[in-house]
Structure formats: C-alpha cells, structure tokens
C-alpha cells in the first residue's frame, strides 16, 4: 500500500511541475516591432494572447480607436484591436514549446499556424507559418518587465 501512495505522490508532483512549466508563458509580451503588447493567459488548458496596449491606439484616418477592419468576417470588423485575441489555442508540448495554436495578423486579416518557443524566461520565438514550419517567419518577443514597486 505504501508503494502505491508513493506512486500517487510522484504522479501528483509530476503533474504539478508540468503545469508550472507550461504557465511560464503567462504574462505580457512585446513583439520586436514594439507596436503592441500582448497578454498571454490561460483558458481551460490552452493559452491565448490578447492585445492590451497599442503604440498607436487610434486609426489616423478616423481618429477613433483602431478596430479589426481587415477581419475576413465582415460582421466582426468593428471588434476593437485593443483586447483582440491574436494568439489562440496553444497547448504546452514540453521542451519549452507551445504548439497547435494560431496567430492572427490584424494588418492583413490573415491567420497562420504558429509555434511558440521559449528561449529563456524573458524571450519567445514566435514562428508563424502556412502549411509546413520551414515556410514561415520568426519574430522575437520580449517579456514586459515590471519596474518599481
């Protein structure tokens, strides 16, 4: 019986460790162009990222807050870009990688397959691609550091 309790304890600790490992992705991140900041959060067991800050929050043509005007679904083109979920459905697959997700580019309304690789605790490689991973583009995102108290 004792060995069974030990076995259960080991399983529990492993699951807890795996969850903590996956959740290192949570936080606010900035793409290399510095145009936006994206907050990654967890819903259920998957990870999603939404835009929480824009360097230029207003559309220069209208003077109004930017909306997702390139959305392929016309009914959703009034969705504000601030708060928009551009990273969707990422699952932690181990070895510092989150896969099975998509990234949306609001500048052209396209959605790409995407893999996130954590290079270190404060740096992500975000690779968007169509079809095969080799045909894609990688961008480096930096974790937004909280300053002061």
């Amino acid at each position, binding site marked *: 019986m004792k060995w069974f309790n030990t076995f259960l304890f080991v399983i529990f600790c492993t699951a807890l460790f795996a969850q903590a490992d996956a959740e290192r992705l949570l936080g606010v991140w900035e793409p290399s162009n510095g145009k936006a900041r994206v907050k990654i959060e967890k819903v259920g067991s998957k990870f999603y990222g939404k*835009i929480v800050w824009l360097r230029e929050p207003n559309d220069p043509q209208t003077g109004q807050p930017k909306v997702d005007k390139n959305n392929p*679904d016309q009914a959703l083109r009034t969705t504000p870009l601030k708060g928009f979920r551009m990273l969707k459905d990422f699952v932690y697959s181990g070895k510092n990688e989150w896969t099975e997700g998509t990234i949306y580019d609001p500048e052209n309304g396209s959605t790409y397959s995407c893999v996130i690789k954590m290079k270190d605790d404060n740096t992500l490689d975000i690779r968007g691609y169509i079809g095969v991973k080799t045909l894609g583009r990688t961008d480096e995102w930096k974790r937004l550091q909280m300053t002061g108290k």
Partner: protein
Amino acid sequence: MKKTLYFQVQFGLFFALLFIFGGCVGETEVMKMTLKGVTLEAEGPLFSGSNTAQGIATPDLEGWLQSKNKTVQGVMDARLVSAVIYAQDSSSIQAISSMAMSFASDMLEMQSVGVLNPVPEGVSSVVVSVADKQKNTLAFLKQPVFTVLLDCDMPEDAEDNLLLSADLEFEITLKQ
C-alpha cells in the same frame, strides 16, 4: 427530328440531375434552441482596458433534441443567431465601452461569435452582433460544456466583480 431528340435528351438529363440532387439534399427543418442565463463573471478589482468575463455553458444538445423526438445524427448545422447580455445592475453594462464574444473549449479551436462596439448608453441589456462565419458552432453544442468568453473594454477601473448574464439563441438545421 434530330433537334427534338436533342431536347428530349437534355430534358431527361436535367430531370435526372434534379432527382439525384433533390434526393441528396432533402428537406430541412430549422428549430431554435436557447441557452438562458449563462453567468459571465470577471473577478474584481478590474483595471481599465480589456477584462474577460467568462462562464460555462452546458448545451445538452442531445437531451434537447430527444425532447423534440429528434436525434443528433439528424443535425446538419447550427449557428448562433442572437446573444443578449444583461446585468442585474445596469451600471455593470454601462462600465463597458465595447465587448467581443468567443466560445472556447479544450477540444476545439476558439471561435469568435459576436461583437458590440460601442455599447449604447443608458441600457440595462444589449444585443451583440453575431458573426457571419461560424464553422464550429455545431461542434461546440455537441460538447457537454464549453466556455463563453466576453472580452469587455472598460474605460475606468472597477473595484467590484463584473457579473453579467447571457441568453444565447441558436438556429439548429435538421434533416426532415
């Protein structure tokens, strides 16, 4: 004579195709299913900007169909046709400047289903404009549970929880 035969063959082919495709498509029936009072909550304190109120929907599509003497195998399509958001306290709605609704599940890709921008002033309930493209709505309804997310843009900080309810109406298309 040759011309008449040509037209006869054309007519024959036309009716044969009509019969074949007519048999495949069959007649359909559209029914409305409503998930009433789905509670959506965001825990306070909330900071200005985007905050997510979320809740769990339990559609029980199979049970609902059984009560109508239908089976889930007969369902061809489903789409969200109306989403009404309301709060006990109308100030909760007034604290939001825009909202975007999505469905999420561990088993399915997240689907954006509606948006309201801006939220009108002085109302206690609002109707979200629903998406035209809804490729996974039926798959969500077939789940025992799925998460409803409401991303709310709030112009000001709020101390309290944001507590809202949603009435979601779906159109279910069935083979007759």
